[in-house]
C-alpha cells in the first residue's frame, strides 16, 4: 500500500500564494516585489509574510537594491525552491489522478 499523495505535499509550498510566488520566480531570472504584489493581488504586508516563510525555508533569496532612487526588492528562486515546486506539481497531479480514479470508477 503506497502512502496517500497528500502526505507528500510540502506544507510550505502547498499554499496558493506561496505556490504562485514560486511559479512566477521559476519563470524568470528574478522578479520584483511589486510585480508579485500586482499579479498575486496581495497587500505588501501579506506578501512580505509569505516571502519570509519561503526565505526561511531556503526556497527563495531576497535581494534589496535601487533602481534610480526607488528601493526595490528582487526575488530569486533557489535550487531547493525549484525542486520543491517540481515536487509540489508532481504531488498535485498524483493527487488529482487518485481522486479521478476513485471518483470515476463505477461500482461493480
Amino acid at each position, binding site marked *: 500500500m503506497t502512502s496517500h499523495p497528500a502526505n507528500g505535499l510540502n506544507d510550505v509550498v502547498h499554499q496558493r500564494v506561496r505556490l504562485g510566488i514560486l511559479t512566477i520566480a521559476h519563470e524568470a*531570472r528574478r522578479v*520584483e516585489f511589486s510585480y508579485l504584489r500586482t499579479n498575486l493581488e496581495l497587500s505588501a504586508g501579506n506578501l512580505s509574510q509569505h516571502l519570509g516563510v519561503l526565505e526561511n525555508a531556503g526556497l527563495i533569496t531576497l535581494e534589496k537594491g535601487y533602481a534610480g532612487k526607488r528601493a526595490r526588492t528582487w526575488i530569486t528562486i533557489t535550487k531547493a525552491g525549484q525542486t520543491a515546486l517540481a515536487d509540489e506539481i508532481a504531488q*498535485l*497531479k498524483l493527487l488529482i489522478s487518485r481522486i479521478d480514479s476513485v471518483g470515476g470508477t463505477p461500482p461493480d
Partner: protein
Amino acid sequence: MATETAPPGDDPRQLLTSTRELAQRVRRAQRATWFPLLVFAAVTFASIPVYRYGGIHHFGKCVVTGSGPRGCAAYPNGEFVYWPAALVLAYAVIAAFYIRRSRARGIETRVRPYAIAGIIIAVALIGATLWALNHPSGGGPAGLHSLGMRLATPTCAIGLALLVLAWAERNRALLLLTVAYSAVVLVPISFGWVLDPLSRWYFVPRLVIDGSVLLLGGICFALAQRPWRPGA
C-alpha cells in the same frame, strides 16, 4: 469517502490550474518576439547595399576541373565584414532590449542562454564559412558542399537564433515561423523571382524574400503582442 478527498486547504485541481495560468501569463509578459524579428529584418535589408557596393573578392582554393576552366569562389568583400559585425551588434541590441524591458516591468528574463547560443552560432558561422570557402564545389561531394554553403549563410544563422529564441520563450508560434523561414532560406524558395546571375543585383530577390519573411513575422507578432499597450 473521506479517504480520497483533497486535504484541507486549497483544492489541488484549482491550484494546478491557477499555477499553469500564472506560468503562461508570466511567459506571455516576457515575450517581445516582434523586436528580434524586426532587428533581423533590418539587418537583412541593410546588407543589400553591402552586397552591391562591397566589391568582389576571390577567396579560397581555385580548382581545375579536368581540362575545363579554373573554378574560384567569388564573394563580396563587405559580406565578410558586414555579417559577423551586424549579427553581433543585433544580438547585443536584442539582449539589451530584453534586459531593459524586463527590468522596467519587474520581471527579469533569462538572457544568458540566448547570448551563449548567439556566441556559439557566430563561431559556427565563421567556421562553416571558412570550411565552405576552402572546399570548392569541385573538391568534394557537390550536395555536401552545397548544403555546407547554405548552412554557412548568415540568414541560416538568423534562423538558428530564432530557433533558440523560440525555445527560450517557449513560443510555438515563433517556432512555426522559424520553420517557415528556414524552409525559405534552405530550400531555397524564390517564388519565381530570380535575376540574371551576371546582374549586379542578382542577390536582391534572395535578401528581399528572406527579409520580408522576418518583417512580416515581426509585424504579425507586434500586432498580437501589442507592445504599445500600457504594461504590455
